[in-house]
């Protein structure tokens, strides 16, 4: 039993990382007041680009991850242009990005022959001597580069958002763009930047699925994780540390599914596959029932900014 739990916990971080990165990407973008529903699509872009780059360039997983982030940021230019410059409805723009990315990734990967091709992927890095610690060593200090990077990114975001003018302005733009504008902050620029950074993080989350975990690209492999990440952000009230905790929780659930089946416990497979979504629903209902006035949601989320010209 102890072995079962240890083996389960050791693989859980690999399942938690994509949720954590995607949720943080969403938080970055949404703190600026842009409602970002395209996460699922940008994860697919990242996942496909990561796998493709690895096949094309060969053997440089970190370069592949970088390429994935760039690709997601590049595609998000379309979204940013739509919602920031043209002030298109952010829900519709976000949903269409998902469908665009689904189609785009299937098209490109089929044409290039990237689908279902095994790739080398990321290897774990042991942080000696910490990796020699009992239990914790295997759990926390014998993971791959993205796992460590995720922790660094979270700390960096926390620092920026609480201790820098950049973070103060980002939050101001999301809370009250009129006030930010009057204070001389370029609202459009901040929203543009936030969408690009957020998409890059979500792209990294996607690339980790193909390059880090599955070591293969399959059509639609994000498998709804982008949507779960959106629920996570609501659950976390747009706070990064709570999002991280939620990601770990969901990662553990996801890691448990194949293990329970392998241990021979009779649970209907589809029920198990459903659990993350049941948990998502539960989270949303819980958040709605709480009805606390402080949902943490940026006050102007989803509202395009127009300098108050006469209407």
């Amino acid at each position, binding site marked *: 039993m102890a072995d079962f739990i240890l083996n389960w916990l050791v693989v859980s971080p690999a399942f938690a990382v994509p949720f954590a990165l995607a949720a943080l990407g969403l938080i970055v973008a949404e703190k600026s007041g842009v409602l970002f529903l395209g996460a699922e699509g940008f994860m697919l872009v990242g996942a496909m680009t990561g796998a493709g780059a690895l096949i094309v360039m060969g053997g440089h997983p970190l370069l592949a991850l970088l390429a994935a982030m760039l690709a997601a940021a590049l595609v998000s230019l379309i979204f940013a242009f739509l919602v920031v410059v043209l002030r298109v409805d952010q829900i519709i723009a976000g949903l269409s990005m998902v469908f665009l990315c689904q189609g785009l990734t299937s098209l490109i990967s089929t044409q290039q022959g990237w689908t279902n091709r095994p790739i080398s992927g990321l290897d774990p890095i042991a942080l000696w001597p910490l990796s020699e610690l009992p239990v914790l060593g295997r759990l926390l200090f014998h993971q791959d580069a993205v796992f460590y990077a995720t922790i660094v990114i979270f700390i960096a975001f926390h620092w920026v958002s609480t*201790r*820098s*003018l950049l973070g*103060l*302005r980002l*939050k*101001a733009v999301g*809370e*009250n763009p*009129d*006030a*930010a*504008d*009057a*204070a*001389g*902050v370029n609202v459009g620029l901040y929203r543009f930047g936030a969408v690009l950074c957020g998409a890059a993080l979500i792209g990294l989350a996607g690339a980790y699925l193909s390059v880090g975990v599955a070591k293969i690209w399959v059509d639609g492999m994000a498998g709804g994780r982008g949507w779960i990440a959106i629920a996570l952000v609501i659950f976390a009230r747009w706070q990064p540390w709570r999002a991280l905790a939620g990601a770990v929780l969901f990662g553990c659930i996801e890691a448990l599914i194949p293990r329970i089946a392998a241990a021979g416990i009779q649970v209907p497979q589809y029920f198990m596959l459903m659990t993350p979504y049941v948990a998502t629903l539960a989270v949303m209902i819980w958040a709605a029932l709480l009805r606390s006035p402080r949902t943490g949601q940026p*006050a102007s989320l989803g509202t395009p900014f127009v*300098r*108050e*010209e*006469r209407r």
Partner: protein
Amino acid sequence: MTSALELSGISKSFDGFRAIAAADLDVRSGEVHALLGENGAGKSSLMNIVAGLYAPDEGTIRVQGRPVRIGGPLDARRLGIGMVHQHYKLVKSFSALENILLANPEGGFARGRATIDTALARLADSIGFTVDLTKPVGALSIAEQQRVEILKMLVGGARLLILDEPTAVLTDMEAERLLAMLRHLASEGAAVILVTHKLGDVMRHADRLTVMRNGKTIATATPGTLNAGELTKLVVGTTTTECAAPAQNVGAPVLSLTSVSSGGNGRRETLSDVTLRICSGEIYGLAGVGGNGQTELAEILMGVATAAAGRIMLEETVNITHAAPKTRRAKGLAVIPADRHSYGLASELSIADNYAIGDVYSGKYGGVLRMKSSVAQSAAGVAVAAHDVQGVRSLAHKAALLSGGNAQKLVIAREFAGAPRVILAHSPSRGLDVRAAAAVHARLRSARDGGAGILLISEDLDEILLLADRIGVMNRGRLVAEFAAPADRQAVGEAMVSHG
């Protein structure tokens, strides 16, 4: 003497509408300069140009004698121009310190905070007030939020201070303190522009004034050379002075509230134990600083919120405590809501539809499946003409296209159509100019003289004193005092702010 600010020939159009037409303004250092005009005269637009929010189409701006181009809020700040907007530009979830830092980012995050702290300590002595720097601004009172805005400007080193309707949301006492503080800043060499439509503030506190009408600056003068009547004439174009006209025929009670409280279900009690009685043929004015329970009371009377305790009776016989809004309407309650665009009108529907919806259950506009739009059209047409709703090019136009005053007239036309017994009028003249407000007041008086009982809820004490036959004062959710007209302004004001 050089001018702190000199505007000449400024024009600005929005979507073809000329909001400002060749406006000139000259403001000197060391003076409080009032910019006076009705709503929509272009005062705020002109000042937004100076603050860098709008770019002028034509005209030149000089600051301290030098011609300048103000391309954005940052340019304005660099030129020492600070503005407190009518709707505060504050991030509600940020603390005062964070808000000030956002507008004054010099020195970065950590050092900037330290600089602001010392600057505030220095300022506190000279202007005589402090604010809680750590609480979220949204949790501060309106007057405190205004102080944060003022500190924001002063920390940035503003020498030209623009305040857009600063006294509109303050009690008399708070307003006096603010104006005295502005005087003090001017005496230290700052130039202060006071945008306002309150003549009293101008007469007592301004050194000079400029009047705007229809986007033009039409006169600059010193308050001493004009009396209130002449000033009104300049602002409005014609002289309209409203006089109080007390009720003649006060009859039996038509609306009585007994120990009405809000809250329950774990929500905060914002209205506690309110008992009041309104008779036919009288206007009962409910005064109070905004946020003292008036909105909750209005919602409970409208039927969109339910009272947690107490009893509401119409005509002493009909209990409507738990009645649906529809039933209340049928029993003769009419409502002029405070927010005419969210409760009063469906902005996207046509004027005719907006008129007809008030009486849609009577069946005269058709049944459930078929609507007789022609009947609605003609009824609306008659009402629009009778109530002098201007700017109606077609009854099929969206209600959103009506100006504030005319939208209000449409609401009144609809609400008064059924000869109501009780009228709830919540801030009926908010945002209206003098003439439109006078028209609204006249309608209320004639409804009263026709035998209706009117509950007038207003934060504008002048409006209450002008219209009400009896006055009640709300303070922290309670009805703390009642006065009979003519009431002593001082006494009513004190009841509004006392913390007894």
